[in-house]
């Protein structure tokens, strides 16, 4: 499948992101088109979350260029991005219901004075439907299971009708049924033209869902299709000195079967 006819939603060239003086990731050059899914792969601390935060604008761009939806970042850019952070940053005791959490995705549209209108509640309800959580809307968020919370945060990201989704380790802590559900959801979003950036350790799921891969280890090692990127040589460069969980399903190049 090629997406060269779809518009580019994300273009980076020689981009670098830093925490203060420490450059966490540099040399990033890639393009993502509408409806495409990009997998970010690399060892812990390699800059995967940094990449997402850089695209979101949480971290500053210290070198190179970054264009989102064809232009430089504007005040409106954040409204078209949906973000699913790693869910261990969420306080389970917080007295909000799932529905209220999902509605938070609409907050920026509401400003400070408007009450949620029908359109906002409808968007939240739709997001809950897509993630299969409608029945739990009134439950306190902290009482949901890990997988349900994950999906709930995804619903929050979806409630704003984003054109690009950024998912940080979305498959962590999910059991198989929930993983399958998430994969389905991502596929549906892609079919609607939403671009998806996913950081993951799971090469199987990356292969199932994603069209391109960015391999990083403090700097960009490779970008391209799975076949191009996931070569033994690239993986050794990325994961040098780090134990990689490899099973017979990884490092499968098109036309080759296991080893």
């Amino acid at each position, binding site marked *: 499948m090629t997406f060269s006819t779809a518009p580019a939603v994300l273009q980076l060239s020689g981009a670098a992101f830093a925490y203060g003086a420490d450059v966490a990731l540099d040399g990033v050059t890639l393009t993502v088109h509408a409806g495409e899914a990009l997998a970010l792969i690399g060892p812990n601390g390699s800059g995967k979350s940094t990449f997402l935060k850089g695209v979101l604008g949480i971290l500053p761009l210290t070198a190179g260029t970054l264009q989102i939806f064809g232009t430089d970042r504007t005040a409106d850019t954040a409204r078209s991005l949906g973000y699913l952070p790693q869910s261990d940053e969420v306080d389970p005791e917080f007295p909000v219901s799932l529905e209220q959490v999902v509605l938070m995705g609409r907050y920026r549209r509401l400003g400070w004075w408007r*009450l949620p*209108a*029908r359109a906002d*509640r409808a968007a939240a*309800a739709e997001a809950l*439907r897509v993630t*299969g959580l*409608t*029945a739990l*809307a*009134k439950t306190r968020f902290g009482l949901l299971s890990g997988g349900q919370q994950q999906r709930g945060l995804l619903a929050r990201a979806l409630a704003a009708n984003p054109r690009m989704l950024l998912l940080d380790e979305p498959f962590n802590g999910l059991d198989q049924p929930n993983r399958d559900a998430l994969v389905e959801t991502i596929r549906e979003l892609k079919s609607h033209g939403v671009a998806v950036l996913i950081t993951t350790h799971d090469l199987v799921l990356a292969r199932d869902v994603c069209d391109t891969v960015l391999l990083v280890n403090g700097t960009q090692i490779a970008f391209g299709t799975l076949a191009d990127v996931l070569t033994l040589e690239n993986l050794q460069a990325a994961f040098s000195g780090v134990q990689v969980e490899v099973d017979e399903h990884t490092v499968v190049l098109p036309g080759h079967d296991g080893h």
Partner: protein
Amino acid sequence: MSVTMQDSTPPLPAAKRGSLPSRVWQVVSCNNRAICITTAVVAVVGTVLALSGCAAPVPSASTKLAVVATTTQVADFSRQIAGTTATVTGLVQANQSVHGFDPSAKNLLDLAAADVLVTSGVDLEAWLKDAIDASGFKGTVIDASTGITLIDNDPHLWTNPANATLMVQNIAAGFAAAAPEQADAFQTNAVAYETQLNALDGWISANVEQVPLAERLLVTNHDAFTYFYDAYDITFVGSIIPSLDDNAEPSAAELDRLIAAIKTTGAKAVFSEASLSPKLAQTIAQEAGVAVYSGEDALYSDSLGAAGSAGATYISATIHNVTVLMDSWGYELLPLPATLSL
């Protein structure tokens, strides 16, 4: 994929999209309990405010002059002058600090009901203006310090019995002006009291004159006795808290200076004050190698003693002070004149 949607919010009434009533209704129904509790709280507050508009506590009517006095000293003077002809209520109680006094509700009610307020003056009561404003006091203020010569704006006027006499005269005049029908009674009481104060003054002079000038040394807790030194030619060696206020903390340099002064002048004692903690005095006395007068032997300065103690009245407090002072100097105390025998 068939999902049963659970609609837990009540259906919106048919109204134009985005119209205000429908949006308000949305808020009301979604936050039912919040609104209920808010309403309840508002109702309670409203009831309180409404009921408060009803009968306010009414002070009991009385034909006697109602006097409120600030400090224990002027309260004592006021009582001596008032006798049974007027009621006197004190604000600051024995051993309470005059400087950091926070009036209670009862104080404010007493003040509101008072005809006359007696103050010690010289800005001793910094809280007084607010207390007057808060209570709605509409009577006359008698400043007992009127016409008295000040030394360095020190408010501890009463320590000199001659000043005490002037204060009594001011208070008596004020009472007479406020309640002319009882002026005679006040005058009689005042004159009798002044006689006692004169006798006190004479007795103190006679006692102090026994002591050679070089030995009339006094070290106190804070600068409360300026007028006393001045009246009887006593040398002030220094005070532990070199301030007119009892609340400060002395610096190390100040303490060193004091200890040196004690040693140089040959002062034999350090005096603590009845309303203050004796710890500082004890420490200094130990450092300087002199005696410390604290606890029952402490001086009465800012405050008279509690009822039943040795310093419950101005005269008894002053007699006590002179007694311990003479003891520290090592000279015999002369017997009290007849008018002062308690």
